[in-house]
């Protein structure tokens, strides 16, 4: 049955791409964090839906991980860090929003063209999910390069990982090993980041990565 099941999966994946776009032009960290929480929530729904459609109960675990860790725990903790650092009211100068959005549109178009053309033979479910997933990944990458703030870079990285989870769950019957590992790696990554943010704060009194560039080891 291709009709409704397919449409709902499509709708959820499309919403993820839309939310990735919304992340691109947020100039306040708290707003960005809210969008990211929403992003993770939609991912959880999407994974849950895949679990239902594919009749793969282990995917519910992945959905639960996305819901609990990425939509609740991580945003709460990051919010705390932001407040503690006193940068929650700061407005981040995002250079050239118009240009970034255009680049984003280009990336989405690119992923559609590439995936849909290349994967003609594959299962349409996986195929369209994959196209959206690649778009989310590329938008996450774009966000990481267009931001200077360490917290926004981290959020960009996590929405990139959301795209990976979307791709992994869209691929039918992909072994559990990978899904758990993805979720797990995000957790590890987050701990690492937590330590780093703490240390950066300790040493620099700022989380602006631009400040780090002053200490380029290679300049005499």
């Amino acid at each position: 049955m291709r009709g409704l099941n397919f449409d709902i999966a499509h709708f959820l994946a499309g919403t993820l791409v839309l939310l990735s776009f919304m992340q691109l032009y947020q100039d306040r960290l708290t707003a960005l964090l809210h969008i990211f929480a929403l992003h993770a929530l939609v991912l959880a729904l999407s994974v849950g839906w895949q679990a239902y459609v594919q009749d793969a109960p282990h995917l519910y675990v992945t959905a639960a991980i996305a819901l609990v860790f990425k939509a609740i725990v991580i945003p709460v903790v990051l919010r705390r860090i932001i407040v503690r650092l006193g940068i929650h009211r700061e407005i981040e100068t995002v250079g050239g929003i118009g240009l970034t959005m255009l680049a984003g549109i280009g990336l989405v178009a690119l992923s559609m063209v590439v995936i849909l053309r290349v994967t003609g033979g594959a299962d349409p479910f996986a195929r369209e999910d994959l196209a959206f997933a690649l778009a989310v990944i590329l938008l996450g990458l774009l966000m990481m390069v267009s931001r200077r703030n360490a917290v926004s870079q981290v959020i960009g990285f996590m929405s990139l990982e959301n795209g990976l989870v979307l791709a992994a769950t869209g691929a039918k019957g992909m072994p559990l090993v990978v899904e758990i590992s993805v979720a797990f790696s995000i957790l590890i990554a987050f701990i690492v980041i937590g330590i780093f943010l703490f240390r950066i704060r300790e040493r620099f009194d700022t989380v602006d990565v631009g400040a780090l560039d002053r200490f380029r080891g290679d300049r005499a």
Partner: protein
Amino acid sequence: MSIADAAVMAVLVIPALAAGLLAFLPNYRIGAAVNVAAALFTFLAAALLLLQRPALDHYLFIDDLNNVFITLTTFVGFTTSVFSASYIAHELKIGRLTPINLRFYHAMYQTLMFALNLALVANNIGLMWVAVEIATLTTVLMVGIYRTHEALEAAWKYFILGSVGIALALFGTILVYLAAQPVIGAGFDSMVWTTLVARAATFDAGILNLAFIFLLLGYGTKIGLAPLHAWLPDAHAEGPTPISAVLSGLLLNVALYALLRFKILLAVNPNAIAPAPLMVIMGLVSLVFAAFMLYRRRDIKRFFAYSSIEHMGIVTFAFGLGGALANFAGLLQMTMHSLTKSAIFFAVGHIAQAKGTQRFAQIHGLSESNPSLAFAFALAVVAIAGLPPFGIFKAEFLLATSTFAREPWLAAIFGFGLLIAFGALIIRLQDVLFGKPSPSEAIPMATLFPLYAHLAIVLAAGIYLPQPLVRWFEAVAKMLG
């Protein structure tokens, strides 16, 4: 369970247990000793695998290709742990590290060894990816261990770029699964490498091509290929020197190994693109770019990090070129580079400790102030520069001649890059060895053992390669196509 099965398990279990133990050992001297012992036993277990292969398994397997890597990895892991023991004693004395740092450091060292070994013996592309990710995270933590401005910046840069690379590699892995799934069926089997390679001929070539692009970009970032290399010099320069040695000697190789596995997969499929041109171009660009960058370095560890980019470029170029001879040369070059570069970092670690700085401007007259160290360093640099009678000369000569016979233009670019790099190495070597000695302090002498162990192998390989080794490398070269 046969001896070989036990050996494969030991290669994974020993470092994992040691990591757990080291995290709780308060005394750093005992910690360092346990670290060395664990690395030694891991190496002995890996050496057993040379004699006997375990039966095929859905999780772990050993073939000619990963046998080369696993032997090399465990050996360099062992010698580096010996070097590390003397290195950290000095760091502790001057107060750059505290005993608590060291507990963490030793536990991370063994976790890294575990991850590297797992990536090498995994028979599952998902598992392999997980292992490379763990290796990345542990090295990020170790690069940042000094907690200086530079160390934090390097660790952050490495973390961000490494994660992006790892993410792209995962996407590529998912695509490989998607290509395999219609043929092999949904489920675990579609990620088992031996099954994949047996049936790859009937996979959808389009998806496989796309997957390879992502895998090349993803694992290529970890190999340090230009223009994806930006993390590498910082990570090498700012972390503890033993970590620079394992980064250059081992982690880059493991990423390359992952890429080679997928290259074999593509070679099996008649409709897939040839990975050769991409790898040749990235390899040569890395070589020439890094060779020029060598001239502008002011930091000795950064300098040799660029030299690693150069050599990984050569190796990627060789494997990209393919064919029995070029693959053989690539394999030899990779092995020799691992041994020589880690030997150089052992020497550089001691030099930086003796002189109290990593800046070239303040390192002069080493031949007067620390003659034996200067001698060892000079030998290692001569070896890495590709002069006879060392092994790298043999590998580069083989590669140059086989390239010249097939693609003269590529050989010209290759030779040009080598010459440029050679010039930089010799200029810097003179700077360090001669001139008015800068102030320095004596360092304990027993610690040059790992360095000479490496150089002895590199020298022996340059003079004579034993027949069994040649046959083994030839088998691998054939496998790589």
